């Protein structure tokens, strides 16, 4: 039977995060979390493999204590086992460090697994870097942005569309694949599944020490990048503001720009001159 590990991430539910313009600090506390959508599709891809040929699915995440709930959601969808990496000393890891930590957890808890799935990118940072870097850490073949997986024995076939080229790639297990947003529409977790996942299942928590990661390790293999400052993008446009009731604003807008719009769309929207 195949052993599959799916690495998932909790992201803020809204993209419009509240922030303080003056300090540039983000009120992450005001945003609820959810499973990153591409990660959810990776869980779905694993479940479809399990249904087709049998597999044991381990879901794994790293994050603050609240992030545990995405593991429970994945268990409710049908995953078999959850592993939660949680330790304040791991907070603020960049993708270089994150992939190192995930690799350590996989080697400890799911050593010898056949297939590792990740979401192709997350909706909060969208670096798309952790999957490919995890493949490097584990020194296994990989493909990003997969739309479809086919398994035949120990051979994995991946179909994907990258930069307008349609590719079919083939590799042997163990392998890592990141799943795009194109297919693998995720299923809903059943109520019974949710109930079981949240009420009855224990999820082991691994801290850095359990993974054999020390401060010295983190110095050598941890984050390479440093954020110096964050700021809001500025713009220099004319920025005409139209206010007022919608009916009036719509008319005012068209009155001002009807000629320019007509020229672009190739038909006249200019109001008839009043007689």
């Amino acid at each position, binding site marked *: 039977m195949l052993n599959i590990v799916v690495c998932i991430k909790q992201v*803020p539910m*809204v*993209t*419009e995060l509240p*922030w303080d313009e003056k300090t*540039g600090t*983000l009120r992450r506390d005001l945003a609820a979390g959810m499973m990153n959508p591409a990660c959810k599709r990776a869980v779905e891809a694993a479940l479809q493999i399990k249904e087709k040929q049998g597999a044991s699915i381990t879901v794994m995440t790293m994050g603050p204590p609240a992030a545990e709930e995405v593991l429970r959601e994945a268990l409710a969808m049908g995953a078999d086992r959850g592993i939660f990496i949680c330790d304040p000393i791991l907070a603020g890891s*960049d*993708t270089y460090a994150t992939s190192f930590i995930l690799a350590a957890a996989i080697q400890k808890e799911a050593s010898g697994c056949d297939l590792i799935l990740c979401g192709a*990118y997350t*909706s909060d*940072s*969208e*670096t*798309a870097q*952790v999957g490919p*870097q995890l493949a*490097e850490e584990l020194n296994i*073949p990989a*493909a*990003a*942005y997969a739309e479809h997986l086919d398994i035949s024995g120990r051979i994995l076939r991946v179909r994907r569309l*990258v*930069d307008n*080229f*349609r*590719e*079919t*790639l*083939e*590799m042997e297990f163990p392998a890592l694949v990141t799943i795009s*947003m194109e297919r693998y529409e995720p299923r809903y977790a059943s109520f019974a599944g949710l109930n079981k996942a949240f009420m009855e299942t224990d999820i082991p928590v691994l801290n850095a020490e359990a993974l054999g990661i020390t401060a010295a390790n983190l110095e050598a293999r941890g984050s*390479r*990048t*440093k*954020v110096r400052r*964050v700021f*809001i*993008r500025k*713009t220099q*446009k004319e*920025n005409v*503001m*139209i*206010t007022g009731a*919608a*009916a009036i*604003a719509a*008319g005012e*807008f*068209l009155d*001002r720009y*009807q000629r320019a719009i007509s020229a672009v*769309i190739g*038909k*006249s*929207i*200019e*109001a*008839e001159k009043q007689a």
Partner: protein
Amino acid sequence: MKTGKNKRTMKNKQKSIWVFGDYRNYYQNRVTLQLISKAVDLARVVDAEVCAVVFGHNVEEWIMEYTAHGADRVLAIDHPSLTSYSTENYLALIEKLARQRDPDIILIGATDFGREFAPRLAKRLKTGLSADCVGLDIAPEGLLVQIAPSFGGHMLAEIVTEKHRPQMATVRPGTFKEIPHNYERTAIVERLSLPANLPASRVRVVEYERAAQKGHTIENAMVIVCGGRGMGNKNNFKKLNELARLLNGDVGATRPVVYAGWADHDALVGQAGKHIKPKILFSFGISGAIQHTAGLGEANFIVAINKNPQATMMKIADVAIAADASDLLNNLIKELKKRIRE
């Protein structure tokens, strides 16, 4: 004498800024040329050469183009086995070259290929990488400042790789302007042979073909009507189609809207979706997270409608209409129907 000689050697160690030659879809995707142009700016500040690195088969055309657009040096490996893009093969080649030559900076286009290739290269070289930068600069002490979207896209972050080299960044296509070509320019071209001990790629390419081009796409639409969550619900969102029809345009959508199932993934505009260049862009109920605005770089004229006049989208618009997006849409459709004469 000895010290003097060492000093000279040190001085002669020319700093190098590398740009990875990503030539697939060359005529639509000019990101390599755009990066060469930016590298020329950066190289002036840190006193470095600009070196383009290109792998493939029959790469003379790209050598010529990279030279004409500003590269001082081109490292090229031309071999039939490199005919189709291969992440693992290209990784093995560039890793070896980077270890031999120790570039100070490596810039890679944030194409699908680049975004898979760059993180793996950074890991192999044990260095940092920032994703999808929208700006690059040199800090007073000489570090590469990588300006990248952050915190769900509302903010930009200045990222540096302090201790490790090379400093690496992927950069979104369209961020910088290419230098006009000059075919009189010359560069040092090093045509290198394929290393004999290159490990075989563990990933086999079974099929590799250009995807069929659709005729009309949102990427070449003149008018685009984009909607975000401020449209309120799926039914309100659907009315954007009517405005698009009246204006001979297409409908685009933000990520939350696509995730909510109000629009197809095909309509997604932004970093993870389509990059659009309409003459007129209508933006209904969109706050303006950078994941979305990243796709609007070439929109000529932006009309934003949002009940929050402080929304980012309202600030970057040419015309900002402070109103409920759905309400304004209905009125605009009504008003347009009165006025249109075919």
